[in-house]
């Protein structure tokens, strides 16, 4: 009987804890006219890549701004938290090489979380990471070949993935030592899930536009915080 009471109490406590964790949501906006993106003209110099784009060439994706002024590819995270990674049990993130471009271009993972890199192109790539805090690697990836899997042990912002065969190809992977982060989507929206109640510093980082912070308090019903970036 005592055991049942104890287990039930612990279970209830656990449920209460989960119920107390809430989401941080928000929208990232861009102020002003969206900066002009440029055609990736070097694609034309490579016949096998040019064949994938018989019409218009793709453009750079430095500032992904929607028609309504919402900004994608902003890494939003809780600042000052470490040692809370659940990466080992997290679902793998995915990075694909398609159309001689990395997709998505901005990714965020936890330390220890798997990042699976695919080659969906009809030609070879080399997958070359040039981190500042984690070890560098450079691997062959044949067309339709086996996926490559990466894990990173140390937190790092905008760790660069590149292809030296196709020097216009880049992706940036941010690595966190905790699960409290999100990448804003095409509609500028982000959701950081299951954040325990408390006061935090929320950071929004864009690779080209810099970093902003806001002090927030997460209550039982979560917190809402937006950011507005502009190009100076």
């Amino acid at each position, binding site marked *: 009987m005592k055991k049942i009471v104890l287990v039930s109490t612990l279970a209830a406590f656990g449920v209460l804890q989960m119920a107390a964790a809430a989401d941080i949501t928000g929208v990232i906006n861009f102020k002003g006219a969206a900066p002009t993106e440029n055609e990736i003209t070097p694609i034309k110099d490579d016949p096998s890549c040019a064949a994938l784009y018989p019409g218009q060439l793709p453009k750079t994706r430095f500032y992904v701004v929607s028609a309504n002024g919402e900004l994608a590819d902003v890494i939003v995270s809780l600042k000052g938290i470490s040692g809370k990674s659940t990466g080992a049990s997290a679902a793998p993130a995915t990075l694909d090489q398609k159309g001689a471009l990395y997709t998505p271009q901005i990714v965020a993972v936890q330390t220890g979380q798997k990042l699976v890199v695919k080659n969906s192109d009809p030609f070879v790539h080399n997958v070359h990471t040039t981190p500042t805090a984690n070890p560098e690697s450079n691997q*062959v990836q044949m067309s339709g070949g086996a996926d490559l899997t990466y894990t990173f042990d140390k937190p790092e912002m905008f760790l660069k993935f590149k292809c*030296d*065969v196709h*020097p216009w190809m880049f992706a940036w992977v941010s690595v966190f030592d905790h699960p409290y982060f999100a990448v804003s989507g095409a509609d500028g929206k982000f959701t950081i899930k299951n954040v325990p109640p408390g006061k935090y510093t929320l950071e929004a980082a864009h690779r080209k536009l810099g970093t902003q912070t806001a002090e927030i308090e997460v209550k039982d019903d979560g917190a809402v915080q937006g950011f507005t970036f502009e190009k100076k």
Partner: protein
Amino acid sequence: MNNKYQPALFWFAVLNAIATFLLIGLGGLVTSHEAGMSVPDWPTTYGYNMFVFPLDKWVGGIFYEHSHRLLASAVGLLTTILAVWLWLKDARKWIQWLGITAFLLVIVQGILGGLRVRWMLDWLGIPHGAVAQTFLVLTCAIALFVSRWWVNSANQNHDSVPRGLRSHVLFVTILIFVQLLIAATMRHQHAGLAINDFPLAHGKLWPATTPEAIADYNAHRPVGTIGNPITAFQVTLQMVHRLVAYAIFLGIVAAAMLARKKLGDGDALAKFAWFWFGLLTLQIGLGAWTVWSNKAADITTLHVMVGASALLVGALWWLMASRRASLAESMK
């Protein structure tokens, strides 16, 4: 074994020297196209034996890096044959050992290139570039030493070349080698152009290198720039490169004028010195064009090759002048 002019040996040595010069150009293209790491494995190529890597996979940066490795293998083979040929057929012990030196140096060069890729050490590209230039001078020097001019000159009268002029040319040649080291260091920063205007530098005679200035330079890089952010060190290095270029140019002008004065207009070495001057004028023009074209790969690579040529001309000039001086001394 003999000490006579052997035309087949000479022309083979010339072939090796030309192949080496082209290899430097191809290596230049690899760096100019940022393709040095496009083939992650070595000595295989994407898992294939490099000599049977399928043509349809020579795409993008792989084309430059793989071609570079193949030509390097060919130069290795030519150098090996040359070393054996010299050992067996040239009576001069010092030429025989020069052949062995070339053989060992080309092996070292191959290993340096391979380790740069395998160990992902960008900085190894710098000694790889330096050894390339040294090897080029060595292969051309060997061709000179087995040439008819050199072999047959022992029996001919020669006008001496003043020691001061020879020393001056040697000094300028060494300065060119230092310049090539500076250039190799610049290229292997993989940061694009640290200064994107010429003859001014970020609009000034000497650019600011404060953190604010560097941040501003990075924020206003030309559209399409691929590479790491530039640093104060790189800006300073580029300025040193420009200053040394001017010093070399003045040094060569002095050498050409001295040669004309001391040797006479008709002297072959005087003409060679003016050719050297022409080469440096071209080189400075290519340097400016490299900046104005935002480091276009073909222009930049031409700049590399003309730089190598300038080093070579200085070295050969000094060797020929020393030969003449030595023979003139022995005729007294």
